[in-house]
């Protein structure tokens, strides 16, 4: 049984005109597997993740089936039990995903207490450990700081730790590096890959950066206009994409060839 199984998932937003962001998508993620969804802005990749975890906007509706470890997540209220402990989520903008008025320490500890009913001491020890896992420098001092006192890269590390404290079996990462500058992007991605191996987590990564995909993913799904146009093993995909759109995406990656 795959860890996550998406069948004929459709996401629609009501309005004039109604928008179909995701249009009958199938996808599976096995345990410990890392899958990347690539595609241009507006292709529906973020909404796909949001629909799985029940985070659609008020006018959004998801149909089809999303099963996590065999349990249906759409519509029946299982999704609340899966959040945190089953599926963790790293957002695009880490500055936004940390509550501004809470210090780093209590903010992390809270997740541990909510997800696993840890005592305050246990949750604090766990958050300290997680901050060490994401290689945040000077952990003791960071625990006492507010999010706005950290740099963008450090905040994204904290945001990853925030998702890890609940010890999910599957990590959703929605363009986790777009808000960061290029050198930090590489560090964060390497970190995500390392943590997935270390904790035996599966990863579902959304990105529009094919360089990221090459380094991280086992499998790649290319999304265009709400549909998957190609799903392939990463190595095969990079060697020779079958769909013209995928070829276009790959050709759009800037190279150094031809520069003086």
């Amino acid at each position, binding site marked *: 049984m795959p860890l996550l199984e998406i069948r004929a998932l459709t996401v629609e937003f009501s309005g004039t005109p109604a928008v179909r962001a995701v249009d009958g998508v199938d996808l599976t993620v096995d345990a410990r597997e890392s899958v990347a969804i690539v595609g241009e802005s507006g292709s529906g990749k973020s909404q796909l993740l949001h629909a799985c975890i029940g*985070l659609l906007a008020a006018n959004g509706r998801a149909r089809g089936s999303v099963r996590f470890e065999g349990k249906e997540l759409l519509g029946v209220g299982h999704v609340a039990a899966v959040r945190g*402990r089953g599926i*963790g989520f790293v957002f695009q903008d880490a500055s936004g995903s*940390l*509550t501004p008025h809470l210090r780093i320490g209590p903010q992390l500890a*809270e*997740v541990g207490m909510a*997800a696993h009913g840890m005592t305050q001491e246990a949750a604090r020890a766990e958050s300290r450990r997680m901050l060490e896992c994401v290689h945040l420098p000077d952990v003791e001092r960071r625990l006492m700081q507010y999010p706005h006192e950290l740099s963008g890269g450090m905040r994204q590390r904290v945001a990853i730790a925030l998702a890890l404290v609940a010890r999910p079996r599957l990590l959703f990462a929605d363009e986790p590096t777009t808000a960061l500058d290029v050198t930090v992007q590489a560090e964060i991605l390497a970190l995500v890959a390392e943590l997935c191996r270390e904790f035996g987590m599966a990863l579902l990564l959304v990105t529009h950066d094919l360089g990221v995909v090459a380094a991280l993913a086992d499998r790649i799904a290319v999304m265009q206009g709400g549909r998957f146009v190609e799903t392939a093993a990463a190595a095969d995909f990079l060697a020779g994409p079958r769909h013209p759109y995928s070829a276009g995406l790959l050709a759009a990656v800037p190279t150094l060839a031809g520069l003086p």
Partner: protein
Amino acid sequence: MKSGLWHDALGQLRGDRAAMASLVVLGTLLIAAIAGPAFVGFREDEIDWANMAASPFEADGHWLGTDRLGRDLLVRTLHGLRVSLAIALAATLVSLVIGVAWGALAGYLRGRADALMMRFVDVLYALPQVFFVIILTVVFGRGPLTLLVAIGAFGWLTMARIVRGQALALREREFVEAAIVGGAGTLRIVGRHIVPNLLGPVIVYATLTVPQVILVESFLSFLGIGLQEPLASLGNLIADGAAEMETAPWMLAVPAGCLVLLVFSFNFLGDGLRDALDPRDR
């Protein structure tokens, strides 16, 4: 954990001179209102037949003069301060607790629950407050408690609307989504991630509510459906004083000065608190 925020806010507030001065003034007024009347030597309804409408320091013992009926103005102002402060603080507390909880929950739940909760607020808004107060006084009689219920019943409506608007916006922020995805329940999200983040506007609005409530109270007393003589409130003292403005200006100046001091202090304190509670300003 929670004490961290308040501890920092206190530290920040200590550095704010205007806010600290306001705190001292408010504290002094509060102590004077509670303990003061016992030291003045006149009762608030005691008539001094020899000194009617005496100006300040003119008559023995009446430091701030007397009113038209020869009652000591100082002790009446202190009593008025006590009643006005009590009603204002209690009504503001009611509006804080009910308004914030109602608004934050409506904004967070959105959709049908939100519509239902806010329509209830709209219905109360549509009731004319004066008629509501008249009905209350007919049923329960006039007095401070009726006045408090009447003001409290309406005071939280605006607060609920302000808070709901803020909560609707906050709900879409990623840190709330992060908390939802982290597995936190509704109450925890509203209590830990939404309410603390809207404390700034709430506190500013609350400090504006206090003087507003004092004015509503004086308006109702002036109409004759609020507090009744010989009970004094700042409102009806000012109304009385305004009638004698040309012949005995101190009757207006004393309670009015007291009200101005009160309102100024609350506003400065509100500004200071807003700065202190926002960690991004540090």
